[in-house]
């Protein structure tokens, strides 16, 4: 009985082996391959900085807009240069403006100018204002609007902060501008 079993096992193995040989022979399929000369796709860097015409910083102390001895309806005006310090074009906006104290009611006017000279400390900015409204919560331009800056390029904004008519004396505030940028 055991011998018979062996014979059957041997025969079955042979048949299976033949099937495999047969499969290997008939499934031949041709292929050809070639390596193409390619290149490298490189992603860029998105980097928005603000500051003066010469240089930008990620956290800029905008002292030029600060003023003391202000009174109702007095204003401080200064240019702020927005730099695209990255390697790809970007879109940005002033996302939000906050004040450390509500004691000084302020309004904001934003005017794009072609040079910092177009934004004197006193006098009208040379351009058309794109925002004129409350300082707190200002978004310029309003979403979904953006301003575009090419890689390595700049955008100069003339910012004017005007003290409201109902300000008390002897109060102060600091203003915080936050910017948001995205790739195009």
């Amino acid at each position, binding site marked *: 009985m055991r011998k018979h079993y062996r014979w059957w096992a041997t025969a079955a193995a042979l048949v299976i082996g033949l099937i495999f040989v047969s499969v290997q022979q008939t499934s031949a*399929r*041709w*292929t*050809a*391959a*070639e*390596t*193409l*000369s*390619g*290149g*490298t*796709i*490189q*992603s*860029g*860097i*998105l980097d928005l900085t603000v500051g003066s015409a010469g240089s930008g910083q990620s956290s800029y102390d905008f002292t030029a807009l600060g003023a003391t001895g202000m009174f109702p309806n007095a204003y401080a005006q200064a240019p702020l240069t927005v730099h695209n310090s990255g*390697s*790809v*074009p970007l879109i940005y906006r002033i*996302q939000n403006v906050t004040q450390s104290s509500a004691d000084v009611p302020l309004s904001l006017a934003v005017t794009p100018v072609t040079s910092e000279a177009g934004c004197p400390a006193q006098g009208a900015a040379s351009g058309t204002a794109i925002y004129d409204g409350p300082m707190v919560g200002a978004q310029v331009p309003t979403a979904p609007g953006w301003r575009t800056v090419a*890689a390595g390029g700049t955008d100069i904004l003339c910012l004017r902060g005007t003290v409201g008519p109902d300000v008390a004396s002897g109060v102060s505030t600091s203003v915080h501008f936050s910017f*948001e940028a*995205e*790739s*195009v």
Partner: protein
Amino acid sequence: MNKATKGAVAAGAAALLLAGGAGTMAAWNANAPMTGGTITAGHLTLSADPSALPSWTVTNGATTETNVDIATYRVSPGDKITYTGKVKVGIDGKNLKAQVVADTTTITGSLATALTTTTSTTLAGQPLTQLTEANDGTTVDVVVTFDFPKGTVLPDNTANNASQDQSASLANFNVKLEQV
């Protein structure tokens, strides 16, 4: 049976066999050459077209830039980058059908994972799914499109920003011509 008897039987059998081999086993045969032929297999070959360098195009929204110098170009989310390489196919076989397959696993680099890759083959601008003997010797375009989609999470998102200053290399980009 004793040994002597066995030996005798064996000797007798051997003698009979020898005798038979000497005379009665002859068989007739004849042969004549037939008019034949030769079965010849065709071939599948693929070679890069040395006369045509690959070209790159970048589309962003409604803007398309052609003939981009990919060595200096910096891509960003929202871009769709298209690579077009040329290969010459050799396909010889009456019933042979083949397709060009771009092996995207040979595109390497950390940026590759941020890109959605699709491939197609075109001939004179028209999509080509299957090649036959009629295409023997023609140069076809292998088009690979890399979609670099914008993330949806705002504002600043670490995962999205991780794709900055990265690269995807096609230095060993492999294309295959496979029988179907």
